[in-house]
């Protein structure tokens, strides 16, 4: 018998606040960091922040949907990591840099 969420020691709000903080950190890293790998990790951070709120809601409402969604997100994140890391590797091979501002030849 699962615990009654109303009696849970950690209220839903706390999960959501944590999720928001993690997401904001991700956004900040995404915008302000200049190393591609750090930017990449920031994206992962945002994805997992969202996962956290999915799981929290899922637990709160006793519904499995949120779990499924978070699995989807994890699959996408894994795929993205594979492709993204490959791209980063190639960029580094060709340009000998990981500074995001120096990779800007794709423009008008």
């Amino acid at each position: 018998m699962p615990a009654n969420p109303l009696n849970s020691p950690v209220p839903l709000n706390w999960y959501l606040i944590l999720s928001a903080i993690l997401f904001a950190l991700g956004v900040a890293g995404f915008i302000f960091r200049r190393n591609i790998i750090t930017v990449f990790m920031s994206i992962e951070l945002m994805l997992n922040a969202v996962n956290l709120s999915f799981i929290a809601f899922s637990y709160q409402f006793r519904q499995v949907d949120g779990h499924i969604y978070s699995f989807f997100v994890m699959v996408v994140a894994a795929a993205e990591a594979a492709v993204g890391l490959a791209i980063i590797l190639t960029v580094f091979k060709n340009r000998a840099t990981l500074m995001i501002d120096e990779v800007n030849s794709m423009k008008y």
Partner: protein
Amino acid sequence: MALWLIPLLPLLGFLVNGLFGRRFPKALVNVFAVGSVALSFAWVVKTLLGLGSLETKYIEHYYTWIQSGMLNIGVDFAVDRLTAIMLMIVTGVGLLIHIYSVGYMEHEGGYYRFFAYLNLFMFFMLVLVLAQNYLLLFVGWEGVGLCSYLLIGFYLTEQFATNAGNKAFIVNRIGDFGFSLAVFLIVRQFGSLDFNKVFDAARGMPVEAGAGILTTITLLLLVGATGKSAQIPLYVWLPDAMAGPTPVSALIHAATMVTAGVYMTARSAALFTKAPITMDTVAVIGLATAFFAATIGLAQTDIKKVFAYSTVSQLGYMFLGVGVGAFSAGIWHLMTHAFFKALLFLGAGAVIHGLHGEQDLRQMGGLWKYMKITGATLFCASLAISGFPFTSGFFSKDAILVAAYARAPWMYWVGVLTAGMTAFYVFRAWFLAFTGEYRGHAHPHESPLVMTGPLMILALLSLGGGFINVPHILEGMFTEGVENQGLAWFSAAVGLLGIFLAWLFYVAKRGLADSFAKSVGGLYNLVLNKYFVDEVYEAAVVEPLVEGSRTVLWRGIDAGLIDGIVNGVGKRSRTAGAVLRLIQSGNIRSYAAWVVLGSIVVLVAIGFYGGLR
């Protein structure tokens, strides 16, 4: 009875020769081209024998072509006696001309192309005469126009030939415009295009109620007929159409296609007889065309032009015939004319062929010595068209003239005068070509049997074709014409007078023609220049149209308005794009900033409108 096989065979010939003929040897092209028409002719004969006396119309329905509301248009072929006659003329004369073309076109380029077009023409012409409704007839009607255009412009490297083709096509468009309006009106009035339904409905209409609409419909049909059958005011394309190879002139511009207007009028007799005003218009147009074209024919020096104006003139006779209500006489003349005019053109072609392309009568003369068969057969045709007693022209032309006399005597007198002129100019051409001394520089020779054979058959038909009593055959469809032996003999006598005058002017006293031409100089010039009709049309219609198209339609509307809109849109897009593309900086962190900014805007907007629900 598989009527569909009749037009389908030439269509197959067209497809085979048109698609693969380039690689075929000439003999194989001949097999498909002539063979398909021969089979078609044989099938016509077999069908007609099988159908017997055709007391009633025999109809075959294949499928429904257009079904819209109450309107139901099918692909139906039908044979009645009128169609039977037309089928025999088209396939019979067509076959002879195909055979003749084998000899005539032997040394020409584009051999397979010529026969492919000729077969395509046969297909459309047969669709035209077999059609059981106005729309299908119109398909054939337009198709023969297309083939006419293709064949007039057959020598496509020659500017004058392509111009003549364009002229024929465009002038015919004017006529077809009238025809299509007539078809629309018929749909609106009768709710059907099927001949039987339309004619039954028209017969049942009371005179007062029907007069207005039927007159409008028939006048519009007449516009179409004047275009296709080269009547005033749209006859100008036919003389120019002689730019095509001579067998084409014989088949399309003498024997078959140009008679489509007469056929259509006779087919629509039920409508025309209910519209007396149109009937008078038809008769007057026919008579005027017959007369004026004959006067022009008097002075032409190009042998094909003489016969071209003669064709216009004879078509005028047919219109006179149908206009005075003698539909069967008109069809009779259509048939005999197909024989002798095809012969005249094919004979002229043999002469041109024998002289290596010379068409000017002034460069001929004394050809009798060199080409006896051609001369003799042409002589037969000339006798027939002059209405020499007991030749084919004698019967049919006099049937028309007698009917005209019954309608209004003055029409008869003008017609007789025209008959005299016809005899004169045809024999003028014959005497100029075949008697006297040879004036040209080529080496005349007789044509091969493949050309003279059809000539001889047509000569027999020209002499004896009048004994095929068409009015008797068509008795059930049209009221039979009146008979008047005295008038018939009188017009024949006028024809003989014309022949005699031609002999006097061009054989007995050679100088007489020139001195006569000088004594009526102004009139002669007027006739020689075809009454300047081409020049008047050029100034009154063509020039304003071309100028208007150039300044208003081209420079104004097309280059100004339409190009302006299109180019303007493009230009504005480029200006906007020049600014917007700066967003695409290549800097990843700026993209990131845009994404965040966008998300914030979306979130704010959602919050502003009360959140997601």
